[in-house]
């Protein structure tokens, strides 16, 4: 399939590729994904004393849409508070990147990576995130890896 110019831009020039020190108190690390659909995302945030994200880095094993989604995600959360970052919806990423339906699950993974990073940071500071585990609601019309599997008819 042909990708949107936005996806190609983030793929060719990914923003914020790299790693932060996972042992640091200021850093939250979220690694999410499943090898079944081919995507693994590691997203890290560095948070200052006011709860503002001052830096973010990512590494992704996945297709162009997955790399673009995680790259855009880091761009979106730098300068925001952790609460604002947690509120980022995958649909914002998917729309910005013009992801086709079959690739929307990549943006879901990016959203979950952010939440996982925030959760990790909170845990380091003894903060209860007060959230129930995220229940999966599939934006990709029931065909992504997170959905319950049914046997496909031949």
């Amino acid at each position, binding site marked *: 399939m042909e*990708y949107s110019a936005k996806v190609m831009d983030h*793929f060719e020039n*990914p923003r914020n*590729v790299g*790693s932060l020190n996972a042992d640091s108190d200021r850093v939250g690390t979220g*690694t999410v994904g499943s*090898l*079944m*659909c*081919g*995507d*693994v*995302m*590691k997203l890290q945030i560095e948070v200052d004393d006011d709860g503002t994200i001052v830096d973010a880095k990512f*590494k*992704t*094993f*996945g*297709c*162009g*849409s*997955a*790399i673009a989604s995680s790259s855009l995600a880091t761009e979106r959360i730098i300068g925001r508070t952790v609460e604002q970052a947690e509120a980022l919806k995958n649909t914002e990423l998917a729309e910005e990147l013009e992801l086709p339906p*079959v690739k929307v*699950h990549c943006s879901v993974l990016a959203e979950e990576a952010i939440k996982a990073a925030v959760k990790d940071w909170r845990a380091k500071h003894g903060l209860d995130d007060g959230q129930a585990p995220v229940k999966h609601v599939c934006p990709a019309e029931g*065909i*992504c*890896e997170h959905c319950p599997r049914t046997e*496909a008819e*031949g």
Partner: protein
Amino acid sequence: MAVELPVYMDHNATTPIDPRVLEAMLPFLTSAFGNAASRSHSFGWEAEAAVAEAREKVAELIGAEPKDLVMTSGATESNNLAIKGVAEMYRDRGNHIITGLTEHKSVIDPCKWLARQGCEVTWLSPDTYGRVSAEQVDEAITDKTILISLMAANNEIGTLHPVGAIGKVAKARGVFFHCDATQAVGKVPVDVNAMGIDLLSLSAHKLYGPKGSGVLYARRRDPRVRLACQIHGGGHERGMRSGTPNVPGIVGLGAAAEICRAEMPDEAKRVAALRDRLQAGIMEQLDFVTLNGHPTERLDNTANLAFEYVEGEALMMKMETVAVSSGSACTSASLEPSTVLQAIGVSPELASSSLRFSLGRATTAEEVDYVVSCIVKAVNALRDMSPLYELAMERAEK
């Protein structure tokens, strides 16, 4: 010599029409437009003669009699006709079919469909190279078995099946042997008599011919295979497959077959050397690269390689100027990684990291060297971005 971009290395998907094939086809797309079934005038006779000549050329390529060939729209149709045609015709003899997990979808799906109609299907498991053995086939045969369907060469990994040995078992046990030879014909010698093949499928567009044209070979002697017709309407192809013959397509197929037959021995050597050059070039410059499939018992033009820690679709995107295909889940509509790779025991992750390179008639050494440099660059760039590579390197340091 400058390399023309993009470079095409996906010949197992399809091949360009050879200029000589196009030349043979053109009259039948322009002035010689007759219907080969028009018995009463020269337009028809001209078309009929061209079809007869093409039939002979294809027959020669596979060691068959021209009368044994049924012209179809391609191997998918041929596979459907072979499998459903035998199942229907011989249902009083039995309802058991033996096939393999690495077969093409156009064999797997008809078998699944027949299973839903009440047939018994045995799915033989390949070894880690993708081979099913003649012994496995022998063990699976029962008194209800009416068909064995196993391919000659696998489209994804290129692995060659022991077709002659399987044919021997089939003959000894009195079971029809259908061979989907789509990837093999024109690349390696195929002889239906020497190999004990009773039914064989092939497509023109894999041998530098046009799309939409293929053949089902159906043996008429020792033993005779009868098929229940699947497409009715006029009784063409001796009642086995109706429809106005695709004269340009058939002529193209004939021309393509003739060229393959003449050039195969030299071309096989040439392309094997290029494929080996590609594989060696890549493996010299990159670590954590593994071959999927058999190292020697495979098509000369195919290399299916897994590049650990990077994902296949991203890899292809990073090399926009090179056309290959991938076993990655991300490239399939079902989001499942290649079933062939999984069937031979490759993990889903490694399957998603795999690319298939399939070289062809126009591939040059310059193109190979260009592709090697593209791959090396792309893999290194993506490994720098990969959390899995980072993890593996950290573990190695400890």
